[in-house]
Structures are given as C-alpha cells and as structure tokens.
C-alpha cells in the first residue's frame, strides 16, 4: 500500500506545487515593483492576489490528489482527500466576520 510509489502521481502533484509557488512569487514581486511606481491601492491588491494564490495552492494540491486517487480507483484515499478538502473549506468559512 503505502510503500508503493507511482512516479507519475508524484510528478503531477509536484507540478501543482511548483506552479503555485512560482506564480505566487512572480505576482508578489510584481506587487512590490508596482509599489515603486504607483501609490494607492493597486500594488496592495496585486500583493493580495499573490497571498490568496499561495493560500489556494495547497487546496488545489488536495483537489488534484483527490481526483488522481479516484481515477486509480483508490476509493479509500480518494475519500480521505475529500475529508481534508472539507476541513480546509470549513476553516475558510469559520473565520468569516471575526474581525
């Protein structure tokens, strides 16, 4: 079970994380550069997009893994991934209005 490794599975999940990390880096960098040229809200909103992209990356990683597990008919781990996804979503909902 756990000791079985599927190289393709690892590669897809690694790709998701890499795309997330790099795109977030470039968006945040763009925000920092924008700060040099403009004042006001625009740079902060770009940076906010970068932060949200970073928060979304692990969620996307769970969704992709969930899909891959169900795709391989590995239902047990498909449902476990689904459970992790539900917890993540609950976390996002719980904080609302807690300012």
């Amino acid at each position, binding site marked *: 079970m756990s000791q079985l490794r599927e190289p393709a599975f690892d590669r897809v999940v690694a790709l998701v994380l890499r795309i997330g990390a790099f795109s977030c880096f470039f968006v945040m960098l763009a925000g920092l550069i924008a700060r040099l040229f403009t004042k006001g809200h625009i740079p902060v909103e770009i940076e906010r997009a970068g932060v949200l992209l970073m928060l979304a990356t692990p969620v996307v990683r769970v969704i992709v893994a969930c899909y891959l597990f169900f795709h391989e008919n590995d239902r047990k781990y498909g449902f476990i991934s689904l459970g*992790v996804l539900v917890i993540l979503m609950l976390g996002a909902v719980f904080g609302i209005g807690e300012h």
Partner: protein
Amino acid sequence: MVSVLLVVLGFFAGLLGALTGIGGGILLSPILALHFGIPIRQAIGTSLVAVITTSAASSSVHLQRHTTDIRLGMTLELATAFGAAVTAYLVGYFNRSALEGLFAAFLLYSSFTILWRGGKVKPEEALAAEANGKQNGGQFAIPAYEPQRYPLGLSMSLVAGALSGLLGIGGGPIKVPLMYIFMKVPLMVATATSNFMIGVTAAASAMVYYRRGDILVEIAAPLAVGVFLGSLLGARLAPRIHNRHLAYLLVAIMLYLAASLLIHLFRGGWA
C-alpha cells in the same frame, strides 16, 4: 524602505531554514513582533504565508525524488488540518501575553533539542541517503515499509496541527520523530512527508487568520518573496554545506528572540 528590509529578512530566514533543515518560519513571527512593531497574532498570520511558500517549493523537490508518502501524508493531514483550523480560530480569543509566552517556550524547546543533538539538525541517515542518492543518479532506494499505529499517529498529528495553528510554525520537530519512531516509516520518507503536510496544515489555519484580518498583505508579500529566494539558494547550497556553526547560529538567534519576548512580556511592554 521597510519592504526591502522585509525581503532581506525573509531571504536570510529562508536561507538559514533550508540550510539547517529547520523551517525559517519560526524566526519570522518573533522578529516581526519585536522589531517591526506588529502585534504577535498578526505576525503569526503573516509568517504563515511564508511557511506555505517554503513548503510548496521544497516539497515539490522531495516529490520529484519520490520520497514523499502522499497516502500517509494525506491521512495525517486529516488530523493536522483539523487541529490547525481549530486553534487558529481559538487564537482570536487568546490574549497577547499568553501567545508571547507560548512562543518563547517553543523557541526555548527547539533550541534545546538542537543543542542536545550536538548541533546535528540533519540526522545522519538522511545525509547518508542523500549521498547514496547522488551516486545512483538521483534514485533513492527506500526499504519496503508499512506505517504502523495509525491511531497514535493521528492523535499526535492533531497536537502538531494545533501547535501549528497556534504559533504559525510547520510542526516538523513533532511529525518527523512521530513517523520515524512510532509509525516505523524510513527517516527520509518521514522528513519529506512532514514537509509535504506543512502546506495544507498552514493553509488550514492561514485561511482563518486571513478572514480575521490577521494576515498583513503588505508585510507578507515582501517576506514571502525573500523567503522563496532564500530557500531556493539554500536548497542548492545545502548538499555542499554541513556546517554545525549554522545550527548554533540558529540556536543563538532563537535564544535571543525567546529572551526578548520574555523581557517584553515581564515588562508588560505591549499590554
């Protein structure tokens, strides 16, 4: 300009984190709180973004070496994500002094564990395996194993997650020994899998912090940019540098930060 300072701070925290194998995130929150005048709760929320960035970048490397047990990681994430989301929510009701005290205690604990192991932050087996992997063209021989004691693993993961949501740290110092010693997972797999889990664990709490307004975007962005660059460079240098002095430097910084937090706490500086 404060942003430049934050990029530099993130860079060195990321570099030191990648070189010593201890997440640089543990340094960021106290430095933000002590030297940038940011309330500790916001400091924790803000450095969580940097923690997720590091985890995503470094675990993509581990995944490509096929040393991550995604199934085990996903299972334990049920517990870490839940624990992290719950404490992240509860932190809203914590007073500042309690958080500062807890953080100082955790910094002291981490320093003493490194000192106790004589400055060896990377276990020897991992170093041997790294060298071995290089000889075999990046392929790592991992012995067959079956994770044991899931109930214990899940309950200790709950604690690791709770601590992560509370202090904005990755919780590696709990998860790695848990998987290695109690669940009988090879050390290399335990390290990679712990790293893999940090992203989801931190995201579960970061979303709660974000919703509460405890992630300061203008601080998080330059910090994460610096951490990203620092950990990329650190990951490149790490196989070539086995410097014990770096671990002691990390310990010195952690002890300094713990002492500063405690001094502020007893003076009632921020209350």
